[in-house]
């Protein structure tokens, strides 16, 4: 699956009269379905408290009903920039590690004939299907034993691991499609295997690494259960956990406005990633799942 969706490719032949009516409606419904919840949260985050609590709901607020107060309140309540920094650090570190460990393994599994290759691959595939709830109890043990509680490593290591299977599968399918001629030529020229990998293969691999890296970054940014369990210090929390814990002073006072603001701020980095790298994401997802 090397090509992401080619444009202007007509795949279906239906009677045009029906299509002319149904297609625009279907497209509009799809867009509405995917965007409406996000837009509602976005709108809420810019409303005044009064406008948020107005019944019936305000869909088109006037100028006096719009405000940046909710964001201000969010930053007064919690160190939200800290959370963003933590999420960014942990996601980036685990992405780099997953690529650094996973890509070489993928190369070995694609090119070098290893004994037990099939067993390793089967293991990697099975592990993709493990939900994190099955792992947190044992990881809690390790975190306690190594005294890693409230340490970024307690997230970076598991995030690296949960991203390794995808990295290995996507990169392996990439290496399999890479023509072998260059590597053979390098061999003839007397390159050692490690030199050849660094000087010849790595530069060609950068686009595939970017594709995989985006997926691993998203997965790490969104992880919840490990971040909830291993980090309890307020200033070290990641965005999803901190957002989920934005309660009010009492159970009856729920700060809807600041929560909406937190949701918007916490999702913006990912919205940007999707807008910029839509094709790469699709390509990576399909090659990871389908080739696997």
């Amino acid at each position, binding site marked *: 699956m090397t090509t992401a*969706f*080619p444009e*202007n*490719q*007509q*795949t*279906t*032949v*239906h009677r045009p009269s029906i299509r002319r009516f149904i*297609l625009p409606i279907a*497209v509009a419904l*799809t867009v509405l*379905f*995917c*965007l409406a*919840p*996000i837009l*509602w*949260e976005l709108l809420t985050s810019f409303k005044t408290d009064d406008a*948020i*609590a107005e*019944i019936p709901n305000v869909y088109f607020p006037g100028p006096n009903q719009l405000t940046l107060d909710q964001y201000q309140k969010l930053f007064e309540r919690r160190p939200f920039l800290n959370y963003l920094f933590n999420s960014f650090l942990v996601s980036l570190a685990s992405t780099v590690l997953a690529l650094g*460990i996973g890509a*070489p*393994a993928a*190369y*070995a599994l694609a090119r*070098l*004939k*290893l004994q037990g290759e099939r067993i*390793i691959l089967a293991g990697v595939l099975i592990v993709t*299907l*493990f*939900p*994190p*709830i*099955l792992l947190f*109890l*044992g990881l809690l043990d390790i975190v306690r034993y190594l005294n890693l509680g409230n340490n970024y490593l307690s997230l970076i290591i598991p995030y690296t*691991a949960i991203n390794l299977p995808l990295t290995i599968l996507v990169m392996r399918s990439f290496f399999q499609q890479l023509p072998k001629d260059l590597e053979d030529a390098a061999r003839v020229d007397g390159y*050692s*295997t490690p030199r050849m990998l660094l000087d010849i293969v790595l530069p060609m691999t950068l686009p595939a690494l970017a594709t995989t890296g985006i997926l691993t970054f*998203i997965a790490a940014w*969104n992880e*919840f*259960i490990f971040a909830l369990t291993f980090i309890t210090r307020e200033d070290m929390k990641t*965005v*999803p956990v901190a*957002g*989920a814990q934005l309660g009010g002073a009492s159970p009856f006072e729920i700060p809807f406005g600041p*929560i*909406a603001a*937190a949701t918007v701020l916490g*999702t913006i980095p*990912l919205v940007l990633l999707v807008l910029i790298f*839509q094709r790469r994401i*699709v390509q990576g*997802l399909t090659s990871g*799942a*389908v080739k696997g």
Partner: protein
Amino acid sequence: MVDYVRAQERRTGWLLTIPAIAVLALVFAYPILRAVWQSFFTINLGNQLSPAFTGLDNYARMAQDGRFWNTLWNTTIFTLATVSLELVLGMGIALVLNQSFRGRGIVRTIAILPWALPTALIALAWTWIFNDQYGVVNDILLRLGLIQTGINWLGNPTLAMISVIVADVWKTTPFISILLLAGLQSIPSDLYEAQAIDGASPWQSFRQVTLPLLLPQIVIALLFRLAQAFGIFDLISVMTGGGPGGGTETVSLYIYATVMRYLDFGYGAALVVVTFLLLVLVVAIASFFLNRSRKRASGAV
């Protein structure tokens, strides 16, 4: 000389693979094996967390544990409902995205957006949408005159289950449509043209061409989604915390509470083991169908 190169290549191969295997073993294999071992012990506040070997007691307790069976039931309902709804909806969206129309690139980008956003934050957004006083769902229903007073969506076990299912369908349908769209694009268009010449209706060509050729992708999507839905944690934890009255408590929420709230490590480990085995069973059944569908698809073309 050839032997030397082979040996060197093999050594490099292992050097490249071992770090990955080590990390996977540490984070995946160790916790599962550790849970199997711990499940034979009683480790809870009753014995000051000092492990006492009690054989299969934890498993016997599970058989009697009504809360466990309730969570298993909830997990099954949630998994079946979300996966089947997502499959139907995901197929519909994939078919739309596969048509040619202006602005298709943007629509495709929008269509993968929900999948990429953090589930915990999305859960907050949906909690707000289903809010009993100010929620937009109630507002729309009231405006349409379908209800007279606001419904307390998250305050009733059945309605709360429906709410978390809706939220999950929104969040994960894009994953399925991406996989199915990739499959749709690999179907050669002359197959449809041949069908159209034979006078087949769109529904007939969908049944006779699209569906059979898409079967491998459908089963792969099913496999991933079954495993993910079975282990659902963050969405429900944030939206309802398993409530009201355990109405949306899934197995993973129960495991988490057993370990983190009741500090019952031995029993928690037994729950992990049983959940793991159930998951293996589900995946084994799904992969059996995957293999069969792959064979059938390669036979058809």
